[in-house]
């Protein structure tokens, strides 16, 4: 029975005289290894260099602001409902007079918490959000935590910083294909 189309049949014939001296096999093997000796190395020196994970990698959560810097989230709770791991919880607040520059609509999330131990980074919150407020960043991991207090991320860690706005390299499939082409040209392939 053949399980894969990559399996090679073992050649069990008796070795002939030349093969028995081991010399041709040895020469072939040494040729293969010296070829690899001079080939390009596959290593990415991790802490200094990082592999590009693609524009759709699901990493750290972010609560986006709109162009004028107002929070988009209206605390509708759809993300919390969509979340299969029940990691998201929020408390809604009503926008007061004079806060129009902070919140886009009358209702906003006074608290918004993601439990990073529960989160499975599935991205369903991103899909459920009708206000395009929550996203999972492609360029940043949730860092390792060393104590239980660090597990729950509040708004201070989630809301977008206007000085360092998050933008995805590609939003659609077409964008992504163009991006790959550009990268390939840049890499000279």
């Amino acid at each position: 029975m053949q399980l894969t189309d990559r399996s090679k049949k073992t050649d069990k014939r008796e070795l002939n005289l030349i093969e028995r001296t081991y010399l041709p096999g040895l020469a072939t093997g040494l040729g293969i290894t010296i070829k690899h000796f001079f080939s390009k190395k596959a290593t990415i020196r991790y802490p200094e260099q990082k592999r590009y994970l693609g524009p759709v990698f699901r990493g750290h959560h972010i609560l986006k602001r709109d162009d004028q810097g107002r929070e988009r989230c209206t605390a509708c709770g759809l993300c919390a409902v969509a979340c299969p791991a029940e990691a998201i919880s929020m408390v809604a607040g009503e926008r007061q007079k004079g806060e129009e520059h902070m919140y886009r609509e009358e209702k906003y999330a006074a608290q918004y918490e993601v439990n990073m131990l529960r989160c499975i980074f599935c991205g369903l919150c991103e899909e459920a959000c009708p206000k395009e407020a929550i996203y999972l960043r492609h360029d940043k991991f949730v860092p390792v935590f060393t104590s239980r207090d660090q597990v729950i991320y509040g708004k201070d860690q989630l809301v977008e910083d206007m000085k360092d706005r998050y933008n995805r390299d590609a939003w659609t499939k077409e964008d992504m294909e163009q991006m790959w082409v550009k990268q390939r040209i840049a890499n000279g392939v």
Partner: protein
Amino acid sequence: MESLSIVNVIIVLTIFFVSLGIAAYETYFERVVAAYIQDRVGPDYAGPYGLLQPLADAFKMFFKEDFMPAKADKLLFVMGPGLALFTALLTSAVIPFGDSLIIGGKEYLVQGIEVNIGILWVFGIVALGVYGILIGGWASNNKYSLYGAIRAASSNISYELAMGMAIIAIIMTSESLSVRAIVEQQHGINWNVFYQPMGFLIFLTCAFAECNRTPFDLPESENELVAGYHTEYSSMKLGSYLFAEYLNMFVTSAVISCLYFGGFNYPGMDWVHATLVGLAGETAGHNIATFVGLGAFFTKIFFFIFLFMWVRWTVPRFRYDQLMNLGWKGLIPLAVVNMVITAAAQLSGSPLIGGYIGLAIFLIVFVLLWPLTKPKSRML
């Protein structure tokens, strides 16, 4: 032999420290070569290009717990790695690293000691080297260590026979046991490897086995024997064993270069010597030419060290019966044939052509007789 002078002492100490330094950096290059062959980059964190890695390794080794099994033979357990290191270092004494240096009108050979039994010295010390492994494995009071030690002893004995016979063929052509005489006789590009290609292959294979390097590293085959003879060793005692292995590799490379690749000889050396003497005067020119020869010798050594590593990361380990078959049924008969061919070629008057004719006759006879042999009695 003239009295010992300060220059001799300096030369001996230089050889000692150079062999230690090269052995230390072999550990680094082993890892780099392994990495490059496996498409990785290897150690590059300690210092520029990871050049301080041997130092870091030594520190690590020294600071590890020095464990000794309760039922081990304390004296022999300590002696084992020491003996391995000691014998590995002794061998480099008779290797002629370079021609000679003229200092103050006196000629000093670039060599630890020039003795007329040089090659016997090398051979004897290499045979003694197995005691380090054997004693260490025995003293550990661990059956895996003992297995490893016994394997080391038996493979060394088996391969020493073929190695000795390959050396006899060399001695026949050089008519001297002194390593320096053997080297000087291969002046220019008159190297032994062209006279005895088969002898070289036999010697090289045996050298791999004597150094316990892959594909013959059965004494420490980890999937059968944990770590073989150094299972119970830790800290710098383990480090000494590994260091001794690398020292052996360096010395063996030097011996191969001396016996088959002309040592410090290189093509066009007479012209270089004459030009340098013409340019810089009799003494300085001669000394510079010696250093050029030294460079040629070390190039050869480094090539063979690289070959050792290259083979290690290419060829898988032999099975034990394969090792024994190759040694006893393959290499020893071949070494005898090589001896006969060399002797006949030596008597025929033209060693080079005679050697190749002999080799061709042997191959033809062998190929013709091969189908007549029974498969079970075949070598290899």
